[in-house]
């Protein structure tokens, strides 16, 4: 990751900037929204990328420590993906994550299936206006290369 960040620095003009977007170090939520109200929320058991996130944070800290970049500004934001059904959302998330061919832990798969079965049950009882949402929190930071 540090090597990639060094490569990005080489490609940037002297007055350029790097914008990094990645998830925060906390599990995303699976929610049900009904009429603007969150009727259900539970942490997603598929949060298995914590180690990757820590490495990403460490890489960013390292390039700042080495004086290659300075961090100008940053902040966090909510990032929600909505589906009209559990099946629709799961199909979408599976397609979006298809680039990652690492096998999922069996226990995590089972916990995810259990969660989504419960979400499906609540959705069916919630009526047509309900939506299921995958709620992540993202961190975005602007870094400026030091020349």
């Amino acid at each position, binding site marked *: 990751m540090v090597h990639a960040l060094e490569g990005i620095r080489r*490609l940037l003009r002297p007055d*350029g*900037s790097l914008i990094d977007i990645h998830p925060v170090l906390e599990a995303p939520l699976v929610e049900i929204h009904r009429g603007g109200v969150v009727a259900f929320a539970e942490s997603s058991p598929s949060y298995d990328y914590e180690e990757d996130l820590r490495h990403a944070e460490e890489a960013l800290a390292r390039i700042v420590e080495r004086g290659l970049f300075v961090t100008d500004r940053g902040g966090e934001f909510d990032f929600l993906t909505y589906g009209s059904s559990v099946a629709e959302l799961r199909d979408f998330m599976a397609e979006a994550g298809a680039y990652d061919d690492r096998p999922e832990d069996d226990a995590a798969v089972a916990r995810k299936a259990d969660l989504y079965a419960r979400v499906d049950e609540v959705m069916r009882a919630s009526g047509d206006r309900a939506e299921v949402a995958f709620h992540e929190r993202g961190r975005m930071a602007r870094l400026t290369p030091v020349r």
Partner: protein
Amino acid sequence: MSVRVDPEGNEIRALFDLVDLSGRDVLEIGCGDGRLTRRYADSVSHVTAIDPFAEGIKRAEQSLSETSRGRVEFQRIAFEEFAAATEPSTFDTAVLSWSLC
């Protein structure tokens, strides 16, 4: 009903709050299906959006609007290979789009 991704626009609002992309040459790394690219493409001079995942790039190209076509270039390529083939100091802004981890 189709899936709605960030209909609130929180991500693009956060991006525009951090950087003015007007007239800029942008490199987006990990563009996936072009979801974020489409949201800022009309602001920039040019964006090169890369991702090694072929299916994502295919969907990105298919869903690009006519107004953005002249200023957006999607490439199916890994960053290391792209960087090795690219001259230094080419871009004003690089966006690591949920791809550092």
